[in-house]
Every structure is written in structure tokens, then in C-alpha cells.
């Protein structure tokens, strides 16, 4: 065997053609399949979001009317939640990098992994079929609350089945990752020598595994009611629609951590690399992921304070909600402590990571505001919740996703994007994002309700600012995507380790070979972030 790793063909070159991709068992290719599909749906969802913002530029139905607006925000929600953000980081970067970071050549069940992607495609087809078949896409909101989801004439059944299938795909990905982490770590890599991204994925996978079935069965009950008349949530015979909400949020609240935890994992990777420093509080960050996953199961009721749940139950859920803030802030403090006095190398991925902290902080703190029972009674179903949610999901997970894209770009494609343009795109994106969503928080406090195509004239200015923000955001987004595409076609090759990272993925060539490693990867002594020249203390 020759020594030079560059002479080995990388995983792009091994085989060519469409079928070598869509039937590939290689975790890297499946990760990229997810990237392309998830990315496309993100653009569709973003376009729907811009459409809504355009409608809200002026009060009154000047662009789309009420029912269409309802369908647009439902489709926006279904696409963004089930087709983009839940699979985003785990299925794309988890698939691509988890095996490499653990020093192995694939996930534990490669064929199951491919099946997950195909189920994802099938679910996507179901979701999109509502555009063509039946009486149009669902107009219930992505929560499909009974009894409206049972009564409405729109095609709820297909949307619900889509969510069911996508849930199954998500379960299989989680299952695969848990087994991979248990069975395929490099010799000598214990749980506490794993990169933090792997820890985050481990916690995420357990949520995917243990929460998703509950929503699966709940959605099946909706389908059974619509198709067979088995009306388990039908209030006219004593069925309880609030029970539907309970079951829905038993999944969907932990699902928020399916979206957020992997993003925190990404940030925990980016920050030590660009601070060139051992991460502060490795175990605290690792175990706080598990703690968030655990506490996340007990707080679902805070989505239902105004739904008619009992008072005592509401107090308990409200108190428990505050406990989530503890492990979350443990992470934030540790990230800040890692950067403090580090020799920081300011690059695009780090900017995204810091933006994550900033946005997530706003999202998290506003979360405490709506988690408080008394405040929530006023703020529930206002734009405050919309703003809060987008700060956490888009400003948090979305920005971490972009950060990961810029961080691992040279590893995945072996090329480098234009760093100057990437910085500019980041700045536009960050400004646009905050212009778009911060006014929503104010609108909510002022009492503008969510999910309407129309609003009172006093909310006009803030809505206009918000819509202008959406334009800035889109410009930044398109510039970023353009820059990434342009980088792909550039002739210049990126070095195997442009950021001087020391987790295992930086030991392979870029792009990696089919089996990731040509020799046994060497673990860093004293933990995955033990930078040799770092300042101690």
C-alpha cells in the first residue's frame, strides 16, 4: 500500500451515475442526498414564508385570501418542521460525519440508512401530493389540532400520513446512530472521548426513538377518524380534543430538542476549533445534552396553558419548564468560557456559531417568558410565540446548519468558498434575520394574534419592517448559496485540514475515501479537544 492518501480515489470518484447515488449505501453519499433534498425543501419553505410576509406587508387580503393563507402557513410549517429542520443536522451532517468522527467506515446499518432516506422521499411526496389531490393542502396549522383537522375539507389525511412516514424515517436514523455510537467507536474511544457532536446526536437519537412513536399513533388516530369514522377525539360523543393536544405535544415538545440539540453539538465543535483550545467543561456539555433530552419530556404541557388544561397541571408544567433553562445555560457558559482568552481565529463558521449563541439566547429567554404561566396567558397565540420559535429554530438551528455547512465544506467537497463573500452573506443574513423576527416579538406583546392574513392598522409599521427584513434575509441566503456553489466549481483545492481541527474527520483526506480511513485513525491523547499548543487554564 502506498503511503500517499491523495492517490486514493475519493467517495465522489468511486462510482458515477444517478443510481450509484440514490441506491448508495455509503453514509457520506446518503448524507449528501439528504443535504440536497433537505436544502431544496428549505428553499420551498422559505419561499412560502416570504409569500406570507408579502401578504402581511399591508393589512387586508391584497395578495392571498384567508383560506389560502391558512394553507400556506400550514405547508410552510409542515415543510420546515418535518422536511427540513428535524432531518437537517442529524441526517445530513450526522450521517456524513458521525462515522468519521468515531473513526469507523459507516453507520451500523447502512441499508437501513438508505431506507430512511427513501422513506423521507416518500413522506415528501405525500406532503406535496396535497397540492394536487383532494381539496388542497391542509389548513389546520402544522399541529393538526382535533377536532378541526377532522372536520376540515382540505386534504389533512395525506399531510398527516406524510408526517407519520417522515417520523418513521426519523426513528430509523436515530436507531442507526445509537447502535453506531454503542458498537462502532474506534478502539480506545470511550463515551467520554467522543466528540461533543456525537454526544449531541446520541441524546437526539434517543428523543427521536422514544418520542416519535407517540405522534405516530396520534396521527394514525386522526386518519382513522377521517377515513373509518373511528372518532377517538370527537367531542360529540365525549372524546377529548385536549387529549389530542397532550399526545401531540408529548412528541412535539421533545421534538424541539431534536431540532436544537444537534445544533448545540455543531457549536461545540466549531468553537474549540476556532479558539484552538480545549473545550471548557467537556462533561458538563456532554451530559447537559442528556439532561435537556430528559427534562424535555416533562414540559409538553406548556403548549397548552390556554387550552383548558387544569390549573394545578399548568403550574407543574410551568415550573418544570424553567428547569430546561439550566442545562441550556450550562452549555452557553461553557462555550463562552472556551472562547475567553483563547487565540480566536475569526472565520465564517465561528461567526455563525456566535450568531447561534446570540439568537438562541434571545429565543431561549423569550421562551422563559412564554413558559411562565401568567405571561403566557397574554402572549399565547400572538406573534410573540412566532418570534420566539423562529429565534430558536431559524436563528438557532438554522444558523448552526449554515455554520456546519461552512465548517465542513472543505472536508466534504475538498474545495473552499470565497471567504470574503461568505462573510458578507453572513452579515446580510444576520441583519435580515433580526429585522424580520425582532418586530414580531414587539407585535406579540402589543397583542397581534398569529395565524391571520390580516391585522389592525396600528400594527402596520412593524409588519412592514418585518417584511423588509425578509427581503434582506433572502438576499443574504441567496448570496450564501451562490457562494457555496461557486466554491464547488473553483479549481483551487482546499487543504485536508484548513481550520487546524483535531477531531478525527480532519485526519482523512478531503473529500474522504470510500472507507474514510486508510490507516487506523490516531486518537488525540487526553480527550478530543486537547489542542497541543493551547494555553492552559
Amino acid at each position, binding site marked *: 500500500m502506498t503511503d500517499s492518501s491523495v492517490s486514493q480515489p475519493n467517495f465522489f470518484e468511486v462510482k458515477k451515475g444517478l443510481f450509484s447515488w440514490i441506491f448508495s449505501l455509503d453514509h457520506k453519499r446518503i448524507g449528501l442526498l439528504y443535504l440536497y433534498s433537505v436544502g431544496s425543501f428549505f428553499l420551498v419553505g422559505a419561499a412560502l414564508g416570504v409569500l406570507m410576509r408579502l401578504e402581511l406587508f399591508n393589512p387586508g387580503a391584497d395578495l392571498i385570501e384567508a383560506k389560502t393563507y391558512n394553507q400556506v402557513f400550514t405547508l410552510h410549517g409542515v415543510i420546515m418542521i418535518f422536511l427540513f429542520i428535524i432531518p437537517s443536522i442529524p441526517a445530513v451532517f450526522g450521517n456524513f460525519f458521525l462515522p468519521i468522527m468515531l473513526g469507523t467506515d459507516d453507520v451500523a446499518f447502512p441499508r437501513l440508512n438508505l431506507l430512511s432516506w427513501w422513506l423521507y422521499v416518500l413522506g415528501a411526496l405525500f406532503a406535496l401530493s396535497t397540492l394536487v389531490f383532494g381539496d388542497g393542502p391542509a389548513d389546520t396549522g402544522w399541529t393538526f389540532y382535533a377536532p378541526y383537522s377532522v372536520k376540515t375539507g382540505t386534504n389533512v389525511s395525506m399531510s398527516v400520513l406524510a408526517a407519520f412516514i417522515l417520523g418513521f424515517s426519523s426513528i430509523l436514523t436515530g436507531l442507526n446512530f445509537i447502535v453506531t455510537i*454503542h*458498537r462502532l*467507536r474506534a478502539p480506545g*474511544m*470511550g*463515551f*467520554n472521548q467522543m466528540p461533543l457532536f456525537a454526544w449531541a446526536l446520541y441524546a437526539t437519537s434517543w428523543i427521536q426513538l*422514544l418520542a416519535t412513536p*407517540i405522534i405516530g399513533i396520534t396521527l394514525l388516530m386522526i386518519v382513522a377518524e377521517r377515513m373509518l369514522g373511528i372518532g377517538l377525539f370527537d367531542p360529540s360523543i365525549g372524546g377529548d380534543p385536549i387529549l389530542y393536544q*397532550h399526545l401531540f405535544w*408529548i412528541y412535539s415538545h421533545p421534538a424541539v430538542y431534536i431540532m436544537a440539540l444537534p445544533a448545540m453539538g455543531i457549536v461545540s465543535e466549531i468553537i474549540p476549533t476556532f479558539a484552538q483550545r480545549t473545550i471548557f467543561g467537556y462533561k458538563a456539555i456532554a451530559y447537559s445534552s442528556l439532561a435537556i433530552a430528559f427534562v424535555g*419530556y*416533562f414540559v409538553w*404541557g406548556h403548549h397548552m396553558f390556554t387550552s383548558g*388544561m*387544569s*390549573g*394545578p*397541571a399548568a403550574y*407543574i*408544567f410551568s415550573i418544570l419548564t424553567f428547569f430546561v433553562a439550566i442545562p441550556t445555560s450550562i452549555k452557553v457558559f461553557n462555550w463562552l468560557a472556551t472562547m475567553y482568552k483563547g487565540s480566536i481565529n475569526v472565520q465564517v463558521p465561528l461567526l455563525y456559531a456566535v450568531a447561534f449563541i446570540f439568537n438562541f439566547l434571545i429565543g431561549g429567554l423569550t421562551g422563559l417568558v412564554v413558559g411562565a404561566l401568567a405571561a403566557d396567558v397574554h402572549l399565547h397565540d400572538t406573534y410573540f410565540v412566532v418570534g420566539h420559535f423562529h429565534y430558536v429554530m431559524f436563528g438557532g438551528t438554522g444558523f448552526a446548519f449554515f455554520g456546519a455547512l461552512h465548517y465542513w465544506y472543505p472536508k466534504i467537497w475538498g474545495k473552499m468558498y470565497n471567504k470574503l463573500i461568505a462573510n458578507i452573506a453572513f452579515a446580510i443574513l444576520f441583519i435580515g434575520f433580526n429585522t424580520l423576527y425582532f418586530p414580531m416579538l414587539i407585535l406579540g406583546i402589543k397583542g397581534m394574534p398569529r395565524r391571520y392574513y390580516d391585522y389592525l392598522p396600528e400594527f402596520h409599521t412593524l409588519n412592514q419592517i418585518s417584511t423588509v427584513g425578509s427581503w434582506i434575509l433572502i438576499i443574504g441566503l441567496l448570496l450564501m448559496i451562490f457562494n457555496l456553489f461557486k466554491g464547488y466549481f473553483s479549481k483551487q483545492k482546499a487543504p485536508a485540514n484548513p481550520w487546524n481541527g483535531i477531531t478525527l474527520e480532519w485526519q482523512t483526506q478531503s473529500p474522504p475515501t470510500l472507507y474514510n480511513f486508510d490507516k487506523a485513525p490516531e486518537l488525540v491523547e487526553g480527550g478530543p479537544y486537547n489542542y497541543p499548543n493551547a494555553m492552559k487554564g
Partner: protein
Amino acid sequence: MSNNKLTTDHHDDAPHITSYVEHFGTWISLILLTFMTVFISVFGADLNTLTVATALFIASVKALVVAYYFMHLKYDPKLYKIMMLVVMALFMVFLIMLTIDYLTR
């Protein structure tokens, strides 16, 4: 937490082979429990709510026997027992939280 505690490979590689007799014994005990629960329900109807509690208790014993012997949990690494406990605990939490809501409405 060391490497070995959470992996499944800390047992010796030879799998435990359960004997036919043991499976048969398990079956006998399950059948006996089944008849017991049917008997209590059909002929002990005056126990009222107690019948439900007894029926559920016996069902849980049966489930435990199936999991422990037929599903081999008894001879499996500790990890499997811990995971099963976590899943059960989680489900109990769901039940308890819901009960709090419904009892105090």
C-alpha cells in the same frame, strides 16, 4: 462511566442457550397466570375495581416473565435492563402527568 459499562460487549461471546425444559416451564407458568386472571375476573366479579387492579397486576407479572425468560432479558447485558427501565419510567411519567391534569379538572 467507563467505555465498557455502556457497550454491549462486556459479556463473554458464547451466547447463553436456554434449555427446552426452561421454556416449557415458562409456558406452564404463563398459562397458569392466564387461568388465574380469567378465573378471578369471571367468578370473582364482586371484587369490582379490585378486579381491574388484579388483572393489570397479573398482566404485568406475565409481561415480566415473557420479557425475562422468552425475550432473554435475564441473560442479557445490564444495558438492556437499564434501557427497558428508562422506557417504562418514561411511559409512567406520561401517565402520571396526564393523570394530574385529568384528576384536577
